[in-house]
């Protein structure tokens, strides 16, 4: 009995001491945090990088854009992440937090585009929506259907109520919760635009922007919009089970499940590779990675990782990232961004 107790005690001591010595060492792998949208792309690059170079494979955490930038900006030492993935541009407030914590030199690299799609099961017809339709179907308060400037609680029950050309199906949309970057982008690019189709609300934008945002970006809570969690695969499965509902998610999931689901036309554009790449499809957003310049040289491999990410075999039209669903930038833009990344040009604070 005593022997067992002694061995266990010795083991725990060993573990504790191993910990303290290891913690003192520097890191020999790149640490990346951030957006779950960029995660599938940055992991693909990391894996390729780990297999083809002498460096260790970077560690990538999927924390969401906001959470990732918070960690990124928390400190300048090597125990903080080197790279943050973001599905939107870094905010002024975040740059300021960074600067306050000693992270002054940040390199911004735009890596490509991601489309957000509204899709439904292939068992039923394709939806042809405008952003105004989507706003009317999903907003909490809409302009009164009887006319006038008054806002009323959303009375629409079916798509036909919204627009006579749409089918008489119940409005049921599965989408991400407010914590998701996809949701942020969706309300900004679809709801705001659809909302601005109404003159009185559009006028509001100039006079009272806060009110404008509250009106346009508040999603109805009476069951027509269902928060389905951050797992896009789950939404795809639910669409299959319930052909009457629509789902909101990233383009790569549509791309992978083209035999089961179809993307809805938005403002006359179908979400496909080409229409997103040339900017015709209205609901697409740029993706970024942010790098701490001070860590280049301290942590082995950062410059090489950037070179891999910005190489044509990764982010080019035929690159392996396009295979994963990333929409590449035009060739000239890629060239400029790659050159900026190579030179490690930092973002200047007064840019905002």
């Amino acid at each position, binding site marked *: 009995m*005593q022997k067992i107790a002694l061995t266990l005690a010795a083991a725990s001591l060993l573990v504790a001491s191993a910990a303290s010595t*290891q913690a003192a060492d520097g890191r020999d792998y790149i640490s990346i945090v951030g957006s779950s949208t960029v995660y599938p792309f940055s992991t693909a690059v990391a894996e390729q990088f780990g297999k083809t170079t002498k460096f260790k494979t970077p560690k990538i955490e999927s924390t969401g854009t906001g959470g990732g930038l918070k960690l990124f900006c928390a400190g300048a030492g090597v125990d903080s992440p080197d790279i943050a993935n973001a599905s939107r541009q870094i905010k002024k407030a975040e740059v300021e937090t960074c600067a306050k914590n000693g992270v002054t030199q940040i390199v911004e690299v735009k890596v490509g585009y991601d489309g957000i799609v509204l899709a439904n099961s292939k068992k039923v017809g394709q939806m042809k929506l405008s952003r105004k339709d989507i706003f009317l179907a999903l907003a909490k308060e809409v302009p009164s259907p009887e006319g006038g400037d008054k806002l009323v609680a959303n009375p629409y029950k079916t798509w036909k109520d919204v627009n006579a050309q749409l089918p008489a199906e119940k409005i049921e949309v599965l989408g991400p919760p407010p914590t998701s970057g996809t949701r942020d982008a969706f309300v900004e690019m679809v709801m705001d635009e659809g909302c601005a189709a109404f003159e009185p609300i559009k006028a509001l934008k100039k006079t009272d922007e806060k009110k404008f945002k509250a009106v346009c970006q508040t999603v109805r809570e009476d069951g027509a919009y269902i928060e389905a969690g951050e797992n896009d695969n789950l939404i795809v499965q639910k669409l299959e089970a319930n052909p009457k509902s629509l789902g909101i998610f990233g383009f790569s999931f549509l791309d992978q499940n083209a035999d089961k689901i179809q993307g809805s036309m938005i403002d006359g554009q179908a979400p496909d590779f080409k229409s997103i790449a040339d900017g015709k499809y209205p609901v697409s957003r740029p993706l970024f990675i942010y790098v701490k310049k001070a860590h280049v040289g301290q942590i082995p491999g950062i410059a090489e990782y950037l070179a891999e990410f910005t190489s044509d075999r990764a982010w080019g039209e035929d690159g392996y990232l396009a295979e994963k669903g990333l929409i590449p930038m035009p060739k000239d833009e890629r060239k400029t961004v790659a050159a900026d990344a190579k030179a490690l040009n930092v973002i200047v604070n007064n840019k905002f």
Partner: protein
Amino acid sequence: MRETQKISTMERVNVGLAKRYRRERRFRLFGLAAIAASLLFLVLLLGSIVAKGYTAFRQTEILLDIHLDPTVLDVNNLATANYAALVRDAVLALFPQVEGRQDKRVLGKLVSTGAAYQLQDMVMSKPELIGATKSVWVLADDEVDMFVKGHIPRDVPESERRVNDQEVAWIDQLTASGRLQLKFNTTFFQAGDSREPELAGIRGAVMGSLFTLVVTLALSFPIGVAAAVYLEEFAPKNRWTDLIEVNINNLAAIPSIVFGLLGLAVFLNFMNLPRSASLVGGLVLTLMTLPTIIIASRASLKSVPPSIREAALGVGASKMQTISHHVLPLALPGMMTGAIIGMARALGETAPLLMIGMVAFIVDIPHGFSDPATVLPVQIYLWADSPERAFVERTSAAIMVLLLLLLAMNAAAVLLRNKFERRW
């Protein structure tokens, strides 16, 4: 008078008897229905997991005749040679009629990008092979694999599947010539995580889970037992010990994410331990399992009859001798059962690990307590969130492995209890 009364009581009983029996049968039926319902759910759960996942244990492989061209493979510089080109040439050689850059590119994608690494390993370990032509089974691409296993339907229009008609024709041709086969999926058990489903495996996650559990067991068992022994055998009964007891019982019911937040604040921000390391994961899970172990240990100490203690003290043993020679050995099986159940819970946890950075993409298999690591349930979560369809079956397969591990641990707990438990 007495006679009639007696009869009327009997009659009353007899009248009510059928109703009472009915009621009893109904009661039993409810219980049976409850068990049937839970069994049904269990079968549904296991059935859907197995049905989705069993195909992951086999993997499509393609037989290639690869010419190990000495002009491409420089003996002095084997690490940087262009193995992918050799694989591509071998695939193209199977279909000499294919022309055009685009077609050739698609054809080259029938084979996994992992084939090049496979070839590299082979050549690096046996450089004398250079110059020869070797027949090698290489991994097929995940989409070919999905098609062969029937997860990508053949009968839908071409535009709706990720394998086009041309590729289908090639795959059929390969199958007909015996160059395409389903083989046991060793990669799944030997590799770390990957973004290519056919190259992804659970080894890294299993090792991470192992390291984490070792830390958890090494810390929580001795601390838990020591705390239980003190509280049960030495501590005076007063307001303070009551307070401690209430707190321990409370801690056992706290949601695990709270322990993750605590771990983030204490181990990462204050003690500066490395992020994503299995050591920190183990520490956090120790905090989580400690109350469970303390409660189980105290219960099993309590169940040792006082006569044993009294007898030991009576023949002149000291308090410490009584405990370490008599009480503890008798209580140990119960404590170990508690510890194993605590460990099984720790094995299935993801929420507290989210906060300390163990929910991450980690390719390299961890070799120590401070290497970045992930654990099995986290691996399942990450795969479930991946867009590639081939990850669906791998997710289910990983769940099966996790369930097997949990079953083994719980079986061990039952065995221990049956073998060593003594009834008084």
